[in-house]
């Protein structure tokens, strides 16, 4: 039987590393002379992994994920923990709609990623860390980020769907084997 939690943790760790790799390959241009992108692989992956869980589990899984990312990869562990937790908990409200259609899954995760970026931007603006205008930020950073992560969400949905099917098949086989073993024991 597959331990889904363990695989989810490894999957999210790989996504967090990929985020860092993409950040080092395509760093943000702080002169804002060209377009930049910020990878949200781990954030989107986390939302797609936890939305099936119960509300408290969702929140705790997402908080832990944000905390690990913030501690080991960036230095904003508290902000990451709260944002991951908030969106991880909030995505559960759309659980039924997301189970019905992949497009809905895509749409909700995409909107939440955008909302996460908006909160970060306006937060930084309110606390005085950023002075650039919304339009400039949207054109130079957010536009390409949305396009890139939009494609990435589709890829993540595909990977998670394939993994879930594989896990289900494995579960069914395992249960069959258990059943056969039980039958054999009874015959003896």
């Amino acid at each position, binding site marked *: 039987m597959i331990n889904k939690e363990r695989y989810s943790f490894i999957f999210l760790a790989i996504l967090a590393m990929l985020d860092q790799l993409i950040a*080092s390959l395509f760093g943000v241009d702080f002169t804002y002379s060209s377009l930049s992108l910020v990878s949200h692989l781990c954030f989107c992956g986390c939302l797609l992994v936890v939305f099936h869980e119960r509300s*408290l*589990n969702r929140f*705790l899984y997402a*908080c*832990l994920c944000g*905390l690990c990312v913030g501690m080991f*990869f960036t230095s904003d562990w508290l902000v990451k923990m709260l944002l991951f937790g908030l969106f991880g908990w909030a995505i559960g409200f759309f659980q039924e709609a997301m189970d019905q259609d992949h497009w809905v899954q895509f749409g909700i995760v995409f909107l939440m990623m955008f909302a996460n970026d908006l909160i970060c931007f306006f937060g930084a603006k309110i606390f005085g860390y950023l002075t650039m205008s919304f339009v400039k930020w949207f054109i130079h950073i957010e536009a390409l980020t949305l396009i890139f992560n939009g494609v990435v969400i589709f890829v993540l949905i595909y990977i998670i769907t394939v993994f879930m099917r594989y896990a289900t098949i494995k579960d069914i086989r395992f249960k069959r084997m258990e059943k056969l073993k039980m039958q054999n024991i009874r015959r003896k």
Partner: protein
Amino acid sequence: MRKFTRIQKRLLTTIVVLCILACAMFGLRQNSITNIGYSAWTYLKYGLIQYPLSSIGNAVNDFANLWHAYDDNEYLSKQLAEQKNYQTAYEDERNKNKQLEGLLEMKGGFGDAKTISVSVLERSSDSWLQTVTISAGKKQGVEKNMLVATSDGAIGLVESVQTMTSTVQLLTSQHLSNDIAIKMSLEDGTSVEGVLQSYDTEKKAYRVSLFDNDAIVTKGQKVATSGKGGNYPSGILIGEVKDVSLNDDSIISTVYVSPVSNMKSFDYCLVIGKEESK
């Protein structure tokens, strides 16, 4: 009261431990005494996560740059090949410029003489030392038997004239149709006259017959046109004396004169005629 499940307890414990650890690290960072602890944590974080990731990123970047290096190499190779072409083009233009400058300087020294600047249109390899076609004809005022000279000196006579072009018989031609009257200034202040009759292919020099057998001619003396006879003024350099051949029983001595230096290759020349020939 609601009880937490086992997984929730585990998650909560992990979160609390990590939060305490993160707060401790944050606190340590503020305290200068405990820099060692913070440095150790930073070193671990850098060594285990950030350094390997940035190394992978750099490796990918280096690999991507290989393609750029290949493109750069291709571009530079093309540039190098073009550079060679530019260099030869530059050399060619520089030579032409030099010739034109020489001609301009020469043109100013003829006073009333009629001069027409022309370029060489064709010089066939079959008759390289025989004829050339120049870019001026009747319309520009070229007439038969006018002298053609480069910046170094005389090179030929106009043989035939068309409307826009003319054919020039070079002085190195074996069948020179007209003799050219020449004059040599001697060291004692006198001068000796003669006629350029033909070109000796063996000696690679003009055969010039002097009318004064007693004249003392030495190698290196300049030979120029005398202006007597022909449709050109006097004083145009023909060449330098290369060899002298004296016959006791003859009233005429033969002098061999080497042609001007750029006879073998030239792009521009002057057609020179007397003012009366207009």
